[in-house]
Structure formats: structure tokens, C-alpha cells
């Protein structure tokens, strides 16, 4: 390995790679320290699928227009205003040129999509998904001469006055250190550190599943925050969705999602309903169910549907639990059988005219006199066989991160840290204070990764 490294990039996902490639193209010598082993490289970018992109007129795989203002208003809707407008608009405005840049760096986009989400106007989908993007970027980074170390666990960045003086890390069983001119931190959030999550969330967090990489443990984030680097975002906030309860503890990714809630009733372990399953179309309401499940006893929920709804949603990765009667289904799912059939009977009784049922839009087919009501897609659950899924809370990412300015530079209370930049999930809380906008994580990572790489190289040169 070269000893004269100009820039150390910590992390190995989209933002890290964008920073490394940009810095290398500016002539700097760059080293990526990726915690994961090679097959798991790429952080959560491995599990992503698309990139939200502003554009005037058709652009690459995108159709029509998606203006800065429309994009920003979409962001305001999900964050309820918890965003830094200057940074958000910078990310949005720069996203347009990023698409071309991504293609020039080996990313292939899908021409059109026949899937369930109609996002052909706002989101560009990677051919093969995020891992293929990550693969393309590693190829490109290697061809630009970037040194890549896998299973390199960064333990400490030494902040002295307003500079990072050295980077300590463990690699191949040895403690090593680098003394680069500049450092880019792009090592994600802390959601894979269950203890940290439990400190922030309380004991229920022990039952959460982590949808993405097990390597985002926030070690560098904690180290920098301990040394007074400014933070942004709420430690108690994380993006959580309801996923298949049988999903792996870590890394289940996209396949663990369940799209069946709107056509179902959802009960807790006592067999009681607790929320309007028909509140809104699924992608929009997907995110709230993570929190709803987290508030239930043992942080579990159970979806119950009947035969007529089975093919109305995307296929699930694990087959549903199937039974000829509700009592049998309850027994298989460890629910109180009497209570479940009572809940279903009560629900069925509250269902009215279902002739306007329409699975893909808000159809107003609602219950009457039921608490909580089901305000759309309310059809009696009465056609055997009956099917069930268990639900658990799946954490996508955490919001607490490093505060940055428009140059992606970090600071302390005393002012900027001269040679420290941050990009990606670790600073996304600056822009995404809460909620989530599909494909926006990749936008933030790409935009700020490139800025961080450029600024770090400028400083190093």
C-alpha cells in the first residue's frame, strides 16, 4: 500500500465511492477503508434501487419533467419541514447533472419499468439494483488508482485543534494508522448497533430488525461526536417500516417488504386491531407501520387476509401462513383463536357495500361504526383459505449524523474542521430530518459524495 495517501475515505458505499472517484480524478491519491468484507461491500447502497432526479424534459431513462420546486415540495411533505432548505435545494439542483455523471462512471439504468411503482418520472432505476451500481463504481475507482482495503475497521480519527491528524484502523489483525491530508467520512448511520439503538429508542429496539448492512455501527460517527464535531438530527429518529416478521435480523433488504396491509386487517398479539389499515396507498403509508408495530406489545403485528386478496400485492419472499379457518390460522400464528375470530367477525359486520373496491386507488370502501375504522379497501375477510403474515419493525437508517455546510465540510463549535468532510447517510439528517423520499438517499450520497471528494482534493492539492 502507498504510504503517501492524500485522502482517506471512510466507508465503501455510494457516497464513499463518489467521493473517492472524484478526488482521484482531481489527481489526489485516495484510499478507501471499507469495514465490510468484499462480498458485503457497499453498505446500504447494495440494497438500493433508484435515484431521485430533478430534470427539465426527458433525461436518460426519465420521462416528462420533474422541477426543483416539485421535488422540494415532495421533500417537505415527508419531512414536515424538517430540512435545511439550502442544502436540500443544492442536492435537488445538482441531481440532474449527476445522472450523466453516473452513466459516465459505469452505472446502467433501466429503460422502463413494468413493476408496481410508477416512478418513471421522478426516479431512475439502476439495472440490476444497487449492488450493480456499487460493482461499477469499484471497477471505476480501481481503474483510477484508488486503493481499496476491505475489512478495515476505523477506530479513531484524531482531532487536534481544527484538523484530523491521523486515522487509526484495524486491518488484517493489526492496528494501523494513516496520516492523510484530508478525510471524507461516508460510513453511514448507527442502526446496526443495537445497543445504541436501544439507548435512543428504549428496550423495544431490541426487537427491531435491521433491513440493511450489519456494518453500519456508527463507530466513526460516535468517535467524532465525542470529540465535539457538530451533529444534526434527532438520535431517537430512525426510518422504520413494517416488514415480514420472519426476515433475517440484518440485511434482509427489499424482499422482506409486505405490500398486503391495505387489503388486510392487522392485529397485535392479543388479536386486537389498532390502526386504520386502509389509510392511504401503500408506498406512502409504508413508513408509518414501522412505528405502529414498534408501539405494540413485543413489537409484533399480524396481517390477516383471505383468498380473494392473495394476488393483489407483490409476491412475498416467505410464503404466507395458510389455514382453512380463522381458528386454525390463529393457532398457527400463536394468536388467541377466539379473540381473532371475534375481531374478524366485528370487522366483517362493519363492512358495507364493496362494489366500488379498487385495489390500486383510494376507493372509499370503508367500514362504518368500527374503531379504528378502515377507510379504504374494507372488504369482509370471509373467503377461505385464510392467510397470515407476521410483521416486525425494520429499521432502514438513523437520522443522527454529522452537520455539514454546502461544501460537505464538518465543523465543531469553534468553526470548520479544515480537513474533514462528510457524505451520504452520515450527514443525510441535515436534509432529511424525518420521513423518507424514495431514491433521495442515493441523491444525497451522490451529490455530497462528489462535493466532498472535490473539496478534499482541492485541500490536499
Amino acid at each position, binding site marked *: 500500500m502507498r504510504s503517501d495517501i492524500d485522502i482517506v475515505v471512510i466507508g465503501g458505499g455510494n457516497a464513499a465511492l463518489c467521493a473517492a472517484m472524484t478526488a482521484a480524478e482531481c489527481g489526489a491519491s485516495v484510499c478507501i477503508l471499507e469495514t465490510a468484507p468484499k*462480498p*458485503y461491500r457497499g453498505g446500504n447502497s447494495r440494497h438500493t434501487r433508484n435515484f431521485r432526479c430533478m430534470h427539465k424534459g426527458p433525461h436518460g431513462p426519465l420521462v416528462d419533467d420533474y422541477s426543483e420546486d416539485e421535488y422540494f415540495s415532495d421533500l417537505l411533505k415527508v419531512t414536515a419541514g424538517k430540512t435545511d432548505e439550502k442544502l436540500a435545494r443544492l442536492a435537488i439542483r445538482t441531481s440532474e447533472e449527476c445522472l450523466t455523471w453516473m452513466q459516465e462512471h459505469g452505472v446502467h439504468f433501466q429503460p422502463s419499468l413494468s413493476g408496481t411503482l410508477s416512478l418513471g418520472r421522478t426516479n431512475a432505476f439502476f*439495472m*440490476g439494483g*444497487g449492488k450493480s451500481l456499487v*460493482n*461499477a463504481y469499484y471497477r471505476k475507482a480501481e481503474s483510477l488508482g484508488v486503493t481499496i482495503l476491505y475489512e478495515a475497521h476505523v477506530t479513531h480519527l484524531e482531532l487536534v485543534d481544527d484538523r484530523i491528524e491521523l486515522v487509526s484502523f484495524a486491518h488484517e489483525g493489526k492496528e494501523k494508522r494513516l496520516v492523510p491530508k484530508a478525510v471524507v467520512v461516508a460510513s453511514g448511520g448507527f442502526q446496526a448497533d443495537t445497543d445504541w439503538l436501544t439507548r435512543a429508542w428504549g428496550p423495544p429496539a431490541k426487537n427491531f430488525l435491521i433491513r440493511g448492512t450489519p456494518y453500519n455501527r456508527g463507530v466513526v460517527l460516535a468517535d467524532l461526536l465525542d470529540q465535539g464535531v457538530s451533529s444534526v438530527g434527532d438520535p431517537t429518529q430512525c426510518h422504520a417500516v413494517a416488514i415480514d416478521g420472519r426476515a433475517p435480523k440484518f440485511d434482509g433488504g*427489499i424482499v422482506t417488504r409486505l405490500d398486503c396491509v391495505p387489503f388486510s386487517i392487522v392485529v397485535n398479539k392479543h388479536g386486537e386491531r389498532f390502526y386504520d389499515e386502509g389509510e392511504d396507498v401503500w408506498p406512502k403509508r409504508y413508513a408509518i407501520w414501522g412505528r405502529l408495530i414498534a408501539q405494540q406489545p413485543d413489537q409484533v403485528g399480524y396481517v390477516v387476509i383471505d383468498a380473494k386478496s392473495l394476488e393483489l400485492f*407483490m*409476491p412475498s419472499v416467505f410464503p404466507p401462513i395458510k389455514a382453512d379457518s380463522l381458528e386454525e390460522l390463529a393457532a398457527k400464528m400463536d394468536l388467541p383463536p377466539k379473540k381473532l375470530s371475534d375481531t374478524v367477525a366485528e370487522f366483517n359486520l362493519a363492512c358495507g357495500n364493496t362494489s366500488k373496491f379498487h385495489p390500486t386507488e383510494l376507493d372509499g370502501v370503508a367500514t362504518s361504526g368500527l374503531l379504528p375504522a378502515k377507510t379504504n379497501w374494507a372488504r369482509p375477510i370471509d373467503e377461505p383459505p385464510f392467510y397470515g403474515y407476521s410483521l416486525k419493525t425494520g429499521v432502514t437508517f438513523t437520522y443522527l449524523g454529522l452537520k455539514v455546510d454546502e461544501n460537505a465540510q464538518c465543523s465543531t463549535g469553534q468553526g470548520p474542521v479544515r480537513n474533514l468532510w462528510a457524505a451520504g447517510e452520515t450527514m443525510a439528517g441535515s436534509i432529511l430530518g424525518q420521513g423518507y423520499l424514495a431514491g433521495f438517499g442515493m441523491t444525497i450520497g451522490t451529490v455530497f459524495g462528489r462535493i466532498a471528494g472535490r473539496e478534499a482534493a482541492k485541500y490536499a492539492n
Partner: protein
Amino acid sequence: MQTDFLQEARRQAEICNACRYCEGYCSVFPALHSERVFSDGDLTQLANLCHNCRGCYYACQYTSPHEFDLNLPKALAEVRQESWEHFAWPEAFAKRFQSSGLMIAIASVLCFSVFFLTIRTLGSAGGEGFYAVLSHTAMVSIFLPAFVFPLFSLAISMRRYWSATNGEPVRLSHIVEAFGSAARMKNLAGGHGDGCNFEDEDRFSQSRRLAHQAVMYGFLLCFASTSAATILHYAFDMPAPYPIWSLPKLLGLPGGILMVAGSLWLMALKLKADKNLGAPSAWGGEMGFVALLLLVALTGLLLYAMGSTSLMPLLLAIHLGSVLSFFLLTPYTKMAHGFYRLAALIREAQRKRTN
């Protein structure tokens, strides 16, 4: 068919169906996504539609060491291999060739070559050129059945395949679409036109697509050359040997060169590729088949170059021995893949039009 291969392919297909990230790579995924449950016939069709480009494997977030342990190219290769053995007629031949293809190819070429040399030692056939070694009548009486039998055997296999995959009556438009796809090797283009991931992990390259096309078009040119010669012989009473500015030579020479270059390239690619992303048990048989193609083309070219030397009778015996082996083994070797792939592409064209 072996249910464990089918079970494993089914398990993986269900995970792919919940993910759908690979949608754009090849025809397998749109076909897969149109189902919710996978019958054995569905899996057989998907397996024969898969061209083993490996794009999906390298893009997959669920490959080993992930606990889902996806390796769809391998799972489909195993089912595909099984389906060819299962549909072959007579079935026992196929099983034997899959397990020890290279040895059988070598043995068969040797036997047939010795056979032709033996005929030669029985004395001159009285003709000129090659026919001095083996008379035209003898050649025809050996090669005509050797050509017809494999076609008959393959016709049975294709019928079995068609019934297993619930094929519908074939229309011209289905055939046009299938041939169009094969002519461009669309399913090795990676969906974005940059080729596949065959020989060097996740790097996209056109190598396999180009090498395959060289072999395929080379073979078709050689086949056209032989057909042209047959027509010249019977319709125009113009027996071999033919001069360089004749149709058989103008077709056969570039055809032979393409086949030699293409099969060497394919062998080199196969040596570089990860064996574990195909059916490991079929690797030897596939290599044996490409080697046989190479031998057919190479001896054909050498025969042309050294036709007037004393090596000619030996070369002719080896050439005829390898051609005979090639034809006779066609229903049981990788050569059958061309027929199955076309059937799968036709079936896929039908599916697309029905949806």
C-alpha cells in the same frame, strides 16, 4: 427430473420474484415475474431461457455469504441440464455423455477415424481426390443416417419439451422473434447492450457473445457449404474437389476459420469463468463439445490446406470421424442446447403475446 434441483430453483425464483431488481437483464426475469407459483414446467422453461450470462448473480444482494444464498445461474443450469437428460431419446445416452463428455467425444472420434482408415486399407475406392479414400456412395450411406437419426431424436425431445412447458401452436411471428433474438444473442447483451459478466466477475464484456456468434455463424456457413456441395453434386453433376472461387469453398473457408477462432475463444472464456455459476457436473461435457467443434473445423481446414499431401488420408479419416461423432452425439451434447434455446425463445414469444 430430480426434484431437489427443481425445489432449489423454485426457492430461488420465489426470492427473485419478491425482489425484481434484475428485471432488465434478460428474458428470464419478465417471464419469472409473470408467475406467482412455479410449476416444474415453468422452471424448465425459465432454465432453458437462461443463457448463463451471470449478470443477475453479480448484481444480486443475496448471494452467499448471505443466508438466502442465491445463485440463480447455477440453479437454472442444473435444471436445464437435467431437462436435457430427461427429454433426450434414448435417455441413457444423454446421462452418460453429461457425466463423461470429453472422454466419449475423444473415444468416438478415435473409433470412427480408425473405422475410416480401415475402410481405406481395404483398397482404393476408385474415385478421385477424397473419393479415392472413401467413395462418395460410402460417405453418403454412412452420413445420411448419421444426419437423419439425430434430427429424429431431437424431434422427440422437442415434443417432450413443448408438452412439459405447455407450449401453444407455433405461429410464424413467434419463430421470427425467436430467431431474431438468437441472431443477435440478445440475452447475452445484459439488457443495456454492454454484454455479460461471464469471464471476469462483474466486468461486462461482449466476449462470450462474440465468441458464441463466431461459432454459430461459422457452423452455419460450414453447413451451408456442405449443402451447396451436395446440390452441386446432384443437381449439376459437379463432384468435389471444388476450386477456391466456388460456393462450397467461399462459404466453408470463412466458416471454418470462424469456428476455430470462436471455439478457442469460448474454451478460453470457460477456463476463466467461475465454474460454480453453471452446472459443475456438466462442465466437462460442455468443454468436450466445444473441443469437438474445434476438431471438426480444424481438420476441415487442414484437409483443405494439405489435401494434396500424403497426410490427406489420415486427416480425412480424423475429419470424417469427428464430423460423424459430432452428428451422432448432437442430441446428447451441448449441441442440443441450440434446439432447446430456440424452443424456449419461441415459447417466450408466445408468453409475451398472450400477456
